């Protein structure tokens, strides 16, 4: 299998956010109950008890609010042995994934089972909840299940769902790690940029020069591989003055964010204009890139001092 060619660019890309999830009343009661070591389910109109409790009947779509309390003991309905736990999973040591039907419930809950090994696990195994020491009102308040021999006690009792200081929301952090690869055309472009050359690609069919290039002419759907250097000078086609500071950006406001049609390119790319007071930037102004040491992209564009381009020269590029 061909591996990445030496010149292929790759970089890590982390997508991470602490999602804040507001809860409906049933979810709120269930998760608050876990905090209080109480397992709640919901009873459907036809008398089935669903644990974990959902807000809407999976069969009839009816809203269900009839809360009941079930036991913290139950029976494994199916299982799988996980020898290599992954990030975020309930246990760091090998464990069994299990679906557990708690006593009094008609449906099963997915969680982890702490057991010495796969030979200690079987469908029908009796288990009980091992509560987390620190509980906040989340599914992880169940640390895991553990084997526990006890007679099944199949009954659910009515519960108001009322608790002091109910949990109304959860924060679930999610981090995903990606490896980003920009592809052939972008790699060529980025590699040239590192040498302070701006490379576009010409479409063999319509002869337009696109920059940054993406390997295909977006209008013709034709592969492009003829590189052509554009710029470095160009014309400001339009712009805005940015007055609010973007998070994580070091630039002082106000500054000018402009669309710049580089000489030889058939569309504008985006860049910052500096070296001139922000309120003197104009459409049609001629600019050139300014590079800083070690940066791949131009830091900004500055006026060349040439006369402004007439509107007719760039109006098709707006």
């Amino acid at each position: 299998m061909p591996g990445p060619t030496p010149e292929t660019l790759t970089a890590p890309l982390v997508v991470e956010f602490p999602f804040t999830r507001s809860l409906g009343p049933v979810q709120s009661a269930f998760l608050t109950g876990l905090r209080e070591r109480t397992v709640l389910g919901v009873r459907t109109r036809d008398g089935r008890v669903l644990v974990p409790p959902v807000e809407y009947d999976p069969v009839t779509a009816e809203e269900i609010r009839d809360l009941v309390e079930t036991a913290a003991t139950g029976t494994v309905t199916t299982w799988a042995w996980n020898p290599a736990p992954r990030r975020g999973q309930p246990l760091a040591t090998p464990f069994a994934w299990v679906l557990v039907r708690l006593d009094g419930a008609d449906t099963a809950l997915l969680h982890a089972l702490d057991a010495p090994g796969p030979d200690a696990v079987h469908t029908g195994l009796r288990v009980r909840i091992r509560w987390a020491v620190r509980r906040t009102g989340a599914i992880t308040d169940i640390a895991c299940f553990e084997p526990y021999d006890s007679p099944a006690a199949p009954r659910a009792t009515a519960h108001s769902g009322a608790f002091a200081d109910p949990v109304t929301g959860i924060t679930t952090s999610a981090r995903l790690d990606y490896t980003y690869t920009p592809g052939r055309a972008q790699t060529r472009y980025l590699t040239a940029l590192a040498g302070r050359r701006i490379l576009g690609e010409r479409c063999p069919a319509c002869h337009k020069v696109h920059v940054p290039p993406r390997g295909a002419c977006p209008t013709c759907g034709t592969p492009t591989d003829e590189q052509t250097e554009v710029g470095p000078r160009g014309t400001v086609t339009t712009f805005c003055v940015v007055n609010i500071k973007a998070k994580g950006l070091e630039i002082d406001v106000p500054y000018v964010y402009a669309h710049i049609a580089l000489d030889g390119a058939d569309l504008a790319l985006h860049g910052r204009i500096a070296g001139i007071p922000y309120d003197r930037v104009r459409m049609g102004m001629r600019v050139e890139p300014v590079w800083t040491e070690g940066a791949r992209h131009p830091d900004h564009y500055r006026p060349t001092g040439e006369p402004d381009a007439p509107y007719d020269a760039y109006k098709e590029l707006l």
Partner: protein
Amino acid sequence: MTRDVAIVAFAQSDHRRRTPETSEAEMLLPVLRDVLDQAGLDPGTPGFTCSGSSDYLAGRPFSFTMALDSVGAWPPIAESHVETDGAWALYEAWVKLLTGEADTALVYACGKSSPGDLRAVLTRQLDPYYVAPLWPDPIALAALQTQALIDAGATDERALAGIAVRNRRAATANPHAQLQGSAPAERLLEADHLLRPLRTHDAPPISDGAAAVVLAADDTARRICPRPAWIRGIDHRIEPHGLGVRDLTDSPSTRLAAEHAGAFTAPVDTAELHAPFTAQEVVLRTALRLGDDVLVNPSGGALAANPVMATGLIRLGEAAARIHRGASDRALAHATSGPCLQQNLVAVLEGERP
């Protein structure tokens, strides 16, 4: 509305473990050119275009918008996108053709699975309150489903190894497949469990790939393709989300979709099933009432290549391609989405008999 719609062309990339040298648009481009060439259409000329993909595979919002660069969407085109497997894009395009608003449609799917950690990515499909915080990955969920089948006496580890062997050996005839050929079942069973009861052979490979089909209606289809694969019926159904609510040994949504697609009115000779895990083929065969005389997954199926978000569309394409070349007269194609076969699509394709 009485309009007959057929799959008239199918193309796919070679499926590989990783493709760092190509962007999604670059991966799609040759596939789109291939399928349009087969159909004798120029870029941008199909009456409708619809694609399937997921932002979560690339880790980028609006990832599908860049793929449009490969389509030739100028002048502007009638175009839509589904955030799921391309099989559902085909469904949307089929509906569009039925309305009479278009005579041809380009359907494509981009399945570049390698940028992320797919096992982690797919956990984000699960109930965000009760399940996703535990990060149960698709292999774990398939293992739970498999154990349920074993407990029910529907299969055993040896039979599952046999399914893996059959699919991957069939893939030796598929030049696009990622995994071709297999050691005998006895050897496979000597390996350690990946996630008991699953071994590596029970799980699909992680694949990058793309696929595209062209649909056409009535005489347009006949003009484009000597033997169109007529869509006699297509339907899809979804089940409740909670794994503990469902009977994991059965697939009622597949059965329902098959009924609505007319799959049971006459026997099929071929079935392309979207079963990423060996045990899921067992579930699907039962739900679809496929006998031993039906050729299942001559392409090697999802066990031979699994470009997520394109795998289902490829099943439709592979089934159609067999009809195109006269190797099948009536084929069933199936696609799935969601954890443990939550959502299923079934299409019945037929070639005209001479």
